[in-house]
């Protein structure tokens, strides 16, 4: 029973990271129709930024994380402006190929600058907490709490503020939003800033537990794509629920079956779903 609770808690923790990454991706893909494959590389960049700020600059972990989120939001804006805006009227596949190019730039740039070795974070919150009879480190609890806070903040931002309303309007109908006087270009930049900042937050949160290395974004981005295809493009609840589900499935199958094939398992689910319903589980057309 203790193993089960441990795995469930681990799954929820993994799931919060997946949810945050998938949220950013679902905003970009669902609202702007940009399959931003670079998202995983930006996740990695966010982890490195936090790592460098926390170790070399000696900042407090949370300060480092906030600065890293802001820096990545800026990178997201620049990327949208320089790469995705010129491709705005092209087919999404052009953006997809451009994204692959940027993966090379970020991942191999990180490999060149920081080397292939795994970086270990100085432990942040190592206190041990008793939950339902099992012990768990405080960091894992904090990850879950921060994720929930961020999700609530995002929800409030989109639903309660005027700026958030422009994002929602653009998601529903880009042409209509433009006719209503909404600056769609600014919305695009904002969506990218939000998405990449969320990815940076997710990476920074998990970095003290997992290790930081240039290839860390690859599996995560594929899983985020799995989540948003299964959960429905642009659906925020879909991304959140899908993220937690995938985290649970992965940690339980890893705990009880085998860890070597868990990627085969999650991608196998996607491929099967796509084969049966080529537009995703909740895809309309």
């Amino acid at each position, binding site marked *: 029973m203790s193993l089960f609770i441990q795995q469930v808690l681990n799954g929820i923790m993994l799931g919060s990271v997946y949810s945050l990454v998938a949220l950013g991706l679902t905003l970009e893909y669902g609202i702007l129709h940009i399959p931003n494959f670079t998202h995983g590389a930006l996740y990695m960049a966010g982890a490195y930024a936090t790592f460098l700020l926390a170790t070399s600059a000696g900042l407090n972990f949370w300060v480092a994380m906030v600065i890293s989120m802001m820096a990545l939001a800026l990178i997201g804006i620049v990327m949208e402006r320089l*790469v995705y805006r010129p491709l705005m009227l092209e087919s999404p596949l052009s953006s997809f*190929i451009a994204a692959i*190019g940027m993966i*090379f730039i970020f991942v191999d740039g990180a490999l060149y600058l920081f080397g292939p070795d795994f970086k270990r974070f100085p432990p942040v919150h190592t206190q041990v907490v008793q939950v339902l009879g099992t012990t768990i480190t405080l960091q894992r609890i904090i990850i879950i709490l921060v994720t929930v806070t961020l999700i609530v903040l995002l929800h409030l931002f989109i639903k309660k503020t005027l700026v958030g309303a422009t994002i929602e309007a653009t998601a529903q109908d880009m042409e209509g939003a433009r006719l209503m006087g909404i600056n769609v270009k600014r919305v695009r930049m904002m969506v990218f800033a939000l998405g990449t900042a969320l990815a940076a937050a997710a990476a920074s949160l998990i970095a003290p537990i997992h290790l930081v290395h240039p290839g860390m974004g690859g599996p995560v981005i594929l899983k985020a794509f799995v989540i948003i295809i299964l959960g429905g493009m642009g659906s925020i609840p879909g991304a959140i629920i899908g993220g937690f589900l995938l985290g649970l499935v992965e940690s339980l199958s890893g705990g009880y079956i085998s860890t070597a094939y868990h990627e085969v398992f999650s991608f196998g689910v*996607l491929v099967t779903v*796509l084969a049966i319903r*080529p537009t995703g589980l909740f895809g309309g057309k």
Partner: protein
Amino acid sequence: MMKRLIVLLLILLAFAIPFFVTSRFYLHILIMCCIWGMAATSMNLIMGYTGQVNLAHGAFFGIGAYSAGLLILKLGLNFWPALILACAITAAFGFFIGILALRTKGSYFAIGTMCFNVIVTVIIDSWEELTEGARGLLGIPRPAPIPLLFGGQIAFTSMPSYYYLVLISLLLTLLVIYRIVHSMMGRSFMAIRGNEELAESIGIHSMRTKLLSFLISTVFAGLAGVLYASYIGFLSPEISDYHITFEFLIFCMIGGLGTLGGPLIGAFLLTVVSELLHGVAVPRLVAYGFLLVITIIFLRGGIVGGAQMLWLKVSGRGER
């Protein structure tokens, strides 16, 4: 006429190269150019001519390479039957993956095939009883000599002989793709690239046509993989990784997608440059990334497309 003459001259030049290039290093680069050129050319059929961004191409290259390696090393088969069987195995995988993945369209197809690529690599990496996993397959021999009628034989131990083998395979690939593109079949591929619904409305069975294009391209990817396996003699799971797919994609994009010569030019250019820069501390893949982004934004047709546009402008045929 002019075009044919140039192509003929180029082929003659390619055949004459081993007579005046004796350096093993330069021959090695040429052999790699031919192998990558074959892989990129075959990817061009499904991606450039049929318009389906297949991101599992590196997996098929790896499946071909591993099938040949395993057939030769574990079953003790001769190279030539192993080559044919490996291509057949690749085609079988291509058939099943194609049937599943081709139901999806656009970005979904790209993501779906990419997931297939990851699955294939993970299986090759984890199924250690069969594939030796991360240790890799060692000691794949060069092709067995072909006996000739009058007692002699064609051996493939020397560099020039292997160069001729890959060169002929490359020309064969190009010839097949050329014939396909200029046939009714190729026209139906291009019709699907243009507009799938419209193509269906004039009686093109889109699933069957896409599957055919997918199959042909996987067979040649498998063939390139087999030649790679027996040339390098060592295989590791990375050879089926999606980074290999991305490299093929870059060859196609830089050279010019949907043109016969484009992927070949891209593969030759980038392979030569990166092999010559071997050991120089240049982050090669970062440069590839910049090249890819710049190409997709400013020069959609790649080198060949750009040259065609320039030619039209110079000869004044651009403005009518």
